[in-house]
């Protein structure tokens, strides 16, 4: 049976609710439409059910399991929706023992997916760049593989608690907006003409940063492979200090 939801975590927990309530075996469901999906279920994002489910899960499984479940959901692997459901059903059944099932395929994969997400979100705490706009917002465009905005936003709330800022994930069309000390996260249509909005000083500090970056490198020890290991190519386009160097390589 084909299960359709709106892609949000709210919707996802509603789907989980539906599956548990109707005692549907995870082997019978799919989150991808294909020829054999005779039955198709459309799930609403009911906020009451979402709240009920989150407190139910919090009560029933360990923090670690919950953490893995959520991170797996945020990952970009094709089968992550089904995998996280399978995992949480297993965790509900064996809440204490699940973390020792290191040899179980479901657990192994959930570990892998959730690690990937944690790693990428930690990486973005560093490689995210803000630009100052004329309206005094600090604006950042990122292109992560996974849905990391919900994971990194709090770090920046603490770090820039007195500023207004926006983090925009272009790959997933999601944004975190922090304005007047309020944080909201959601899907978004687009941000247009940001370059047009840049504060004049902005260019200056970007120049300073580029100069600094260039000046501290030790030419005799140039090691591009090492650098790319740490800073994969696909992230470069938003990194001010190397963005335009792409063509040089």
């Amino acid at each position, binding site marked *: 049976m084909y299960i359709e939801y709106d892609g949000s975590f709210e919707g996802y927990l509603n789907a989980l609710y539906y599956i548990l309530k109707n005692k549907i075996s995870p082997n019978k469901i799919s989150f991808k439409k294909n020829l054999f999906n005779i039955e198709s279920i459309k799930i609403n994002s009911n906020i009451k059910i979402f709240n009920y489910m989150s407190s139910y899960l919090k009560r029933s499984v360990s923090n670690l399991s919950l953490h893995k479940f959520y991170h797996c959901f945020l990952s970009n692997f094709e089968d992550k929706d089904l995998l996280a459901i399978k995992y949480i059903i297993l965790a509900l059944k064996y809440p204490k023992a699940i973390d020792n099932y290191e040899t179980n395929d479901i657990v192994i994969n959930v570990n892998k997916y959730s690690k990937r997400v944690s790693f990428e979100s930690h990486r973005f705490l560093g490689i995210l760049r803000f630009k100052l706009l004329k309206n005094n917002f600090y604006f950042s465009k990122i292109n992560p593989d996974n849905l990391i905005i919900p994971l990194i936003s709090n770090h920046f709330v603490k770090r820039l608690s007195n*500023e207004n800022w926006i983090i925009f994930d272009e790959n997933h069309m999601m944004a975190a907006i922090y304005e007047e000390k309020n944080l909201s996260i959601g899907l978004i249509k687009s941000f247009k003409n940001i370059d047009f909005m840049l504060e004049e000083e902005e260019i200056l500090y970007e120049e300073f940063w580029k100069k600094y970056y260039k000046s501290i490198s030790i030419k005799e020890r140039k090691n591009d492979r090492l650098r790319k290991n740490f800073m994969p190519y696909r992230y470069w386009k938003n990194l001010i200090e190397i963005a335009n160097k792409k063509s040089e390589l």
Partner: protein
Amino acid sequence: MILKDKIKILAESAKYDVSCSSSGSSRANSKNGIGNASIGGICHSWSEDGRCISLLKILFSNNCIFDCAYCINRRSNDIERATFTVDEMVNLTINFYKRNYIEGLFLSSGIYSNPNETMNSLYMVAKILREKYKFNGYIHLKAIPGADPLLIKKAGFYADRMSVNIELPSEKSLKILAPQKSKSSLLVPMKSLSENILDLNRFNVKNHKFVPAGQSTQLIVGASPESDYKIIKLSENLYDKFKLKRVYYSAFLKVNEDNRLPNKNSSLLREHRLYQADWLLRFYKFKAYEIFNKGNYFLDEKLDPKLFWALNNFDLFPVEINRCDFDTLIRVPGIGVKSAYKIFNMRREKSINFDDLKKINVVLKRAKYFITCNGRYMDFSLKDPDKIKQAIYLENKGNLIPLFQDNLPVISIR
């Protein structure tokens, strides 16, 4: 001079400095401030040579009235000079920080007028950042040799970490290569910092910690003739007496023509071995005299120091995995602290064999010469330290020794 040129000159002069860590201190955001120094350490970029960029590491000035033989910034060198103003430095830090380029500031300086004035500038930068801008990012300041201890102490209330660089491992070498510095001009501020760190943090006043990430120092290796033993012994003293957090080693790189200096750059491998020996002091409960007993004064560049020690003290082996105590266990080459804990836990359940050791990542290739499981060696092993040494040399041949990320040679030293 425009700011961009200053940045170029003063970043270039600072780039060879070895310590890059911003971890070890966690400063919660004070009300309405910006930033929080985070514990994990965040890399914001990686330079062309693959080093993590976490802090704005820069000199306040590369002018210097001193004339240390090994330093590019020494007075007698004809190079481009620049000095920031306090405001420039503060603005640069704040603006880099808000754009998420950096975790904080690592500020050092040549002695551009006199020690007190220089120290005062560094102090003012930190003070204005913290007080006026409520900056909560990481700040590492160098304590300028010869500056008034009171001034250094005042700076300590705003810095997360401070360092006094000793540079040369003996007073004699200091006299020859850095004649304007003296042992006491370095040790006095170090000592007073360490006393203040102990004293002032006892009361644990919130948001008013004194140098919460402790102090560190740096030694140049190979600019002067001191032995590895002498260097490690000095580090041991610094860890014990002054409670230093880290000693950084830096292989000498010749940037000045000067007949007081050796002709060659010092080897990075030697530097690497010293870091490993330092590691043995800090985490494996070794004493300097133990690592170098039996008349050795230099480490073997081809062996890691633990192996070096074990082969020199072969009469202490083999140790029986199922019976020996913890401190003995961690001294076995190929067994780290982590695997030693695992062995200890496992031992309660069962008697351990070689397969078990493999599973918990003991490096049997190394360990096998030094251990028995239930009285038996792993295979027919060599039992002569000289032969073992030859075998290991042979194995290592062609294997490049991985170098630490942060142990680059020093050209300019503050």
